């Protein structure tokens, strides 16, 4: 990868900032709303969510909510810090983080919507690739933290 000029770098950073700001806030909005929905399900003791037979759904949806909110915050953190990175952010890191923000929480939510006894539904198959994308994204961001003079 060629090293961008300072002007290019600023434009690039601005693009990533905006992208992850949008994704982060949208994810926070969506998955915090899921949290509110889960609280309502608790308040009204909805058996479809709290019943013993649907224990997997409760777990998966809780995980979906938690991962969604956490990944939203990770996106916001990246937006806030990408200018500070010693090396420019790798474009694949940005894309993979966004895809992971979609696949992981949505995998939990869809997997929890169609549980089969103790097993999650088909949606759970989205979680492993999402996790892989997240790991790659984080690894690339770590790479961008390296000192450019070394």
């Amino acid at each position: 990868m060629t090293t961008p000029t300072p002007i290019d770098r600023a434009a690039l950073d601005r693009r990533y900032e905006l992208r992850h700001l949008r994704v982060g806030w949208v994810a926070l909005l969506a998955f915090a709303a899921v949290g509110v929905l889960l609280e309502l399900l608790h308040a009204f003791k909805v058996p479809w969510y709290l019943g013993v037979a649907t224990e997997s759904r409760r777990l998966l949806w809780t995980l979906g909510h938690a991962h969604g909110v956490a990944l939203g915050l990770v996106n916001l953190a990246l937006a806030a810090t990408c200018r500070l990175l010693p090396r420019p952010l790798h474009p694949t890191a940005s894309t993979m983080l966004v895809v992971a923000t979609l696949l992981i929480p949505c995998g939990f939510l869809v997997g929890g919507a169609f549980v089969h006894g103790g097993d999650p539904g088909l949606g759970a198959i989205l979680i492993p690739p999402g996790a892989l994308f997240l790991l790659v994204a984080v690894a690339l961001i770590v790479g961008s933290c390296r000192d450019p003079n070394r």
Partner: protein
Amino acid sequence: MESLLVWTLTGVAVALLLGRSRARASLLVATVLVASTAAGHALWAARARSRERSAEALRARVPQPVGDGGYVTSNACRACHPTEYATWHRSYHRSMTQVASASAVRAPFAGETLRSDDGKSYHLRRDGDELWVDISGVGARRIAMMTGSHHMQAFWLPGERGNAQIEFPFTYVFDDRRWVPRRDVFLVGREYGKDPSMWNRICIECHVTRGQPRFDARTDVPASAAAELGIACEACHGPAAQHVAANASPFRRVALHDGDGIDATIVNPARLPPARASEVCGQCHGIGCPPESWLQSGIRFRPGQPLAESKQILRQATLQKSACARQIAADASFAPSRYWSDGMVRVSGREYNALLESPCHQHGAMTCLSCHSMHASDPDGWQLAHDRDGNAACTQCHSAIAQNVSAHTHHAAGSTGSTCYNCHMPHTTYGLLRAMRSHQVSVPRVQDTLATGRPNACNLCHLDRTLAWTAAALERWWKLPPPSLTAEQRTVAASVLDVARGEAGVRALTAWSMGWSAARKTSGADWMAPYLIELLDDEYSAVRYIAYHSLRGISGFEDFAYDYVGTEEARFAAQREALARFSRARRPAARAELLFEADGRFARGELERLMAERREDDEMFLAE
């Protein structure tokens, strides 16, 4: 819908990955994502099909859950009552009937082969979470249901008609970690047949919640159903649909928490009047006369309602006046297999009958909940409430006795002789291959022993004493007039007479008491071996089982091997070996009442003489 959502998410992810870029790496990652989703989809679908096939096959054969009558199952209870749910869930009530599965079974099902008397072989195996048996001449059959989970587990095979469940001919006994023929876990004489039971006719009454046998009145084919398999929340608290619906509102729940907590939409047995509270347990723990329609609609009892309206409890004194009088008159063994001759219940699982006959219930406020608790107890401690395991159960009412226990008991305070249960609730009921406490609160009297044959509390602990010794003590302490006794009753220990001449149920109780730690401490154990060895050859397999377990507790017999359902030759050989071991052991002191002569030798001839007087028609079974 599920697939559509998954593929939509995958499509969005691919679009994001590719974006405006068509870089090779992006294409590769997107391709891998699509491929992994497709592979996962295929695997998931295959697994779902297999799971559905297995569930479908079982659904057609197993009594189905039905929600009529306002039952919602325990599934709905945990959200608000997690502690109560957890305490019930760990209890043996929950697992009284379960769908057979590898995750719930205690037996190995690891390729063992069992052989029945009729020559058939049964090869047991697992297939995933399913349990299977290959029966010679019949083929592979899937085990559909299991009952029991405390002492033993029985298994049920789908029958030919409807969803009938037919008894598997072997039972797995936990203590011994072995399979035994079904017949040999009951105290049953050879004269009595033991055809395979049908779960839908017997167990469904009490081993499920709101069981409905649903036998077709014309074809007699069952299409049985239940609100829930196992004895669940609604068996004791009643149907909960109204309660669940009302308490979906958080405002109502807050109001209840802030108020007295009493919710009229559900029954709490602890808040019922004493008679109604005990009837909740009595619906199953009593000898009942179900209405004629029960094989179609089941028992219609609801907690809080009078039990007599849906199921009459049969007390021996009123058997002839009961709705079942005709059936009882036609079955000469009905009363003897359930009651001692004075009407006291003698089989386990029927404690409500015993409570009804108890003065503490008749003249006081004693209920099942005076001692037991479903939620604040240890399931392995007979569900005795945490603060009622001991004299506290009795002294909550009999507080004056608690001031000076030994003045009442004439035994040292804190000793087993000063434990209320041991004198007033002795081990005179039988079930599950052991003696259990009578739940009829009574006073020990030699007269009762003479009239019924039932061992009295004193001689179940003082196994080495005669009836005359007991009668003298009761006269001295309680002014009970001594009964007239035969020469043998005056000179031979009561337990010895029970082993020699008692009927099978009495022999079982005596053999169990010989293994009871309190009795051994009181009576010594060095003299017991020859009697227990004698019972290794008892004609009742249940008596042999108990005798063997008691014998193993005696020094020198800890490693003694014996198969209580083995061949007669093998049992004789084991008995000979046991006698040889006893002859090598240190001889007990001379005691005429225990048939030990002056030189410490055992007078076996005298025991045989006494045994020769055992009644010829000693055929019985106990309907536990």
